């Protein structure tokens, strides 16, 4: 592939114009290079976070192969999951026979503690009834009568991967949690990470909450599934949220949701239906968002913020001040999931960076309003514009007609960054072209230090590689 920024072609020139941008934005039906995928992918991630849980896709086997390949490329870990391999006959007669046989084989072979079942669009279109099929599987003794199975409908033609995560999580609570026992609580704070593909972020949440002296359960907890030690032995199931703690979830002292938009349905269920004290915070990216997270913990538990975290905060602030000159006044374009974008934009505003184009392929109106309010809260936010439901080809037009200094997002943005001749700071999901980025946290004070360093050093590296010889000096 020729580097587009170095090519001459009349169409390429036209593609960089305002006129093209207008045509591009007039699109109503075609989607090109979207920053979102389908529901069952998020459901799989959620299922991988429960101890001894086998994700089970009711639908076509090809979907399972795709989800597994995709996640495994990002985390460089095995991703176990089965499907019941529905084919043309199931399309005609329904998928019950596949589901029952699939449960029987999966249970006998992989010996899971629980199965979390969700659907591909094939099963959704033909209208399969998971609840009655699972009941029939028990009646036919394909699985023991008391074997725990959670299920969720995850149609690919509504919502996105974050909706699927939410649906599966709610499905787990509805299927496998014991009823709430009045006012008694188990004294545990349930921390819900949301659609989170940085195992290092999950570890950071656990470390910070534990440092506060709070007794917690991570739900779900795919940390080890996404980053397990190499011991020379393969274990199909990595430790996740213990089943007992899932069962006891509705007796929690409270729930804290680390992402809002990937947990909407679960929040409603926990807060409005179960009446459990719960809070949803902006993803704690950057100093201010992390402050807000800790203050929420204080509010919920009455615990104090320990000296250890305060010192850490001080180090993050020190890093921000030390490096501010490399980020201040720089213009950024960003894309990704709503929660990630809210966190990142807050972080940029902390640093004096200027968020300009904010593309959210799976954003909704509440997200737009929240993002606009955030931008209005800072003098650095006035150039920022939110593009809900747009894709990376729209963003390409934005980058070429209204240039910025850096693109922030996942690896799928590498082509448009190259076309616009700007660096890409890789943040979010999907990062298959760099190693171990998911192993560095981007949340909490430590995450702030990591992000500041990454962004500042990319700018400095770019300058070192491209500056005139006479400006190539030792000090930066």
């Amino acid at each position, binding site marked *: 592939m020729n580097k587009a920024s170095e090519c001459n072609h009349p169409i390429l020139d036209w593609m960089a114009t305002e006129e093209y941008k207008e045509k591009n934005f007039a699109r109503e039906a075609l989607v090109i290079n979207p920053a979102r995928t389908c529901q069952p992918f998020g459901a799989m991630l959620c299922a991988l976070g429960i101890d001894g849980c086998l994700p089970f896709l009711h639908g076509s086997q090809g*979907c399972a192969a795709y989800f597994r*390949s995709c996640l495994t490329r990002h985390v460089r870990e095995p991703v176990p999951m089965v*499907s019941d*391999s529905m*084919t043309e006959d199931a399309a005609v007669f329904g998928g019950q026979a596949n589901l029952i046989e699939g449960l029987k084989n999966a*249970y006998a072979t992989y010996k899971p503690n629980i199965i979390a079942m969700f659907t591909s669009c094939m099963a959704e279109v033909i209208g399969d009834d998971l609840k009655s099929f699972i009941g029939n599987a028990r009646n036919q003794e394909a699985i023991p009568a008391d074997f725990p199975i959670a299920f969720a409908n995850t149609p690919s033609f509504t919502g996105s991967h974050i909706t699927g995560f939410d649906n599966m999580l709610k499905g787990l609570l509805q299927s496998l949690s014991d009823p709430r026992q009045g006012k008694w609580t188990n004294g545990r704070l349930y921390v819900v990470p949301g659609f989170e593909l940085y195992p290092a972020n999950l570890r950071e949440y656990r470390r910070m909450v534990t440092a506060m002296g709070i007794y917690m359960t991570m739900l779900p907890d795919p940390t080890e599934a996404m980053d397990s030690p190499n*011991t020379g032995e*393969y274990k199909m199931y990595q430790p996740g949220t213990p089943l007992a703690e899932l069962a006891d979830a509705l007796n929690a002292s409270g729930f804290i949701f680390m992402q809002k938009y990937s947990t909407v349905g679960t929040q409603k269920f926990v807060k409005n239906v179960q009446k459990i004290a719960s809070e949803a915070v902006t993803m704690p990216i950057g100093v201010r968002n992390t402050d807000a997270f800790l203050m929420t913990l204080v509010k919920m538990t009455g615990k104090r913020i320990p000296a250890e975290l305060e010192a850490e905060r001080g180090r993050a602030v020190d890093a921000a001040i030390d490096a501010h000159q490399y980020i201040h006044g720089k213009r950024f374009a960003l894309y990704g999931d709503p929660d990630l974008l809210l966190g990142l934009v807050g972080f940029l505003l902390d640093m004096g960076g200027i968020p300009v184009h904010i593309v959210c392929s799976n954003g909704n109106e509440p997200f737009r309003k929240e993002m606009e309010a955030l931008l209005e809260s800072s003098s650095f936010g006035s150039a920022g514009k939110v593009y809900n439901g747009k894709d990376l080809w729209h963003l390409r037009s934005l980058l070429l007609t209204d240039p910025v200094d850096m693109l922030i997002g996942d690896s799928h943005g590498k082509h448009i960054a190259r076309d616009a001749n700007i660096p890409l700071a890789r943040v979010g999901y999907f990062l298959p072209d760099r190693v171990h980025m998911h192993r560095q946290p981007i949340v909490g004070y430590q995450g702030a230090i990591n992000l500041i360093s990454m962004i500042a050093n990319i700018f400095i590296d770019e300058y070192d590689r491209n500056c005139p010889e006479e400006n190539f000096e030792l000090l930066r």
Partner: protein
Amino acid sequence: MGEKPNSSMVEEVLSVYPEKAQKLRAKHIVIKEECSTCAIKSNMKCVPGLMTARGCAYAGAKGVVWGPLKDMIHLSHGPIGCGYYSWGGRRNLTKGILGVESFTLMMFTSDFTENNIVYGGDKKLEKVLREAKELFPSVQGFSVCSECPVGLIGDDIESVARKMTKELDVPIVPVRCEGFRGISQSLGHHIANDAVRDHLLGKRERDDVGPYDISLIGDYNIGGDAWASKKILEEMGLKVRNVWTGDGTVEGLMTAHQVKLNLIHCYRSMNYICKHMEETYGIPWLEFNFFGPTKIRESIREIAAQFDETIQQKGEEVIAKYDPLMQKVIDQYRPRTEGKRVMLYVGGLRPRHTISAYEDLGMEVIGTGYEFAHKDDYDRTFPEVKDGTIIYDDVTEYELDEFVDRLRPDLVGSGIKEKYVFEKMGVPFRQMHSWDYSGPYHGYEGFPIFARDMDMAINSPTRALTKAPWKKEKEVR
């Protein structure tokens, strides 16, 4: 070193399954014995609930066959996911300006919503095609690759394609590759071949045909493989008019009926079109193998034999030029790879085609198998393997884990879904679909890279770190 493949091992591994699954799976695993014929069952439904590596018809049609064809837009028609997962997931390299001359690295979808499921997606499809043609005026055509819902809701993409072909004046090819069709990628390959046959092949004529014109078929240019193969063929004096479909063009496919010989690399995914061209246009086809110097040498001679003495002479010159260079590669790596045992589990052709390349390095393939092969693939595989080799078809992840754990090969070559399982087990691994982001592995250009990569996997010092010094009592395998 582990056990040798044996039938009681297989029985023991399968014994964990419920009875029906046990019976079904037993037909797909054999150990080659002296004079044994190819008795393995293949191309059958996966057993529900067992972890298969197989994909679907869409993956075979859009992901494998159509995707690499660069100057066409391949529309993932249906919900968002299928296009997303197959976006950039195969390393089909292309030359050309992105968005102008090549669209392979981009993802186009009609992004079905609930509304489209309820009221049908045909109108949306028209609109999508119009918008795409307007934004990408240089596009040479479209394939409409159907995802599951399209077939289930009864959309008529064929008539939309006919209408829009006229309106937009580029070929628009309906591809009925819904994921529920068939039992693996394989039917998708066939459907895609048929779509090429019906909508592109023979639609244009070129006036500069020559006696040495050939097509390179079933090479998807993973990591530049097709370029490495083309290099040899062109040094032999042949003219590679088009590649199906790695770095391929619509023009190339349309005029492919005018070549003198079809060379087929991946038999599984493209034999259909070769047989069609033989029947319809009388073009002979020949399978060849450019993995490792032994097979390259044999293949060059077989290919040259189809042509006159000029080509045969040049073929010998190519062999004479490269053989000493390949010997150097062998001399460099073989001391470290000699006697190492390999197990393979891949798709298309690699489970048999790469065996000889390993043997060139003194290695021995003790197990091999295919995700979606048919009987004719296994017929071609049995002669390539030694007695005592275990052959497994659509092996489940559990079976493969168990076989590898018991047989303890020095190297496993398989796919991304398998990779990290074996890395955790402490068994050296190379991805043999994507070349683990390396390559090319084809041709004389590829073999030195192949040899380096296999040596690197087997002899990396990193695995020696696995055992913590305070855990001496436990042997890490």
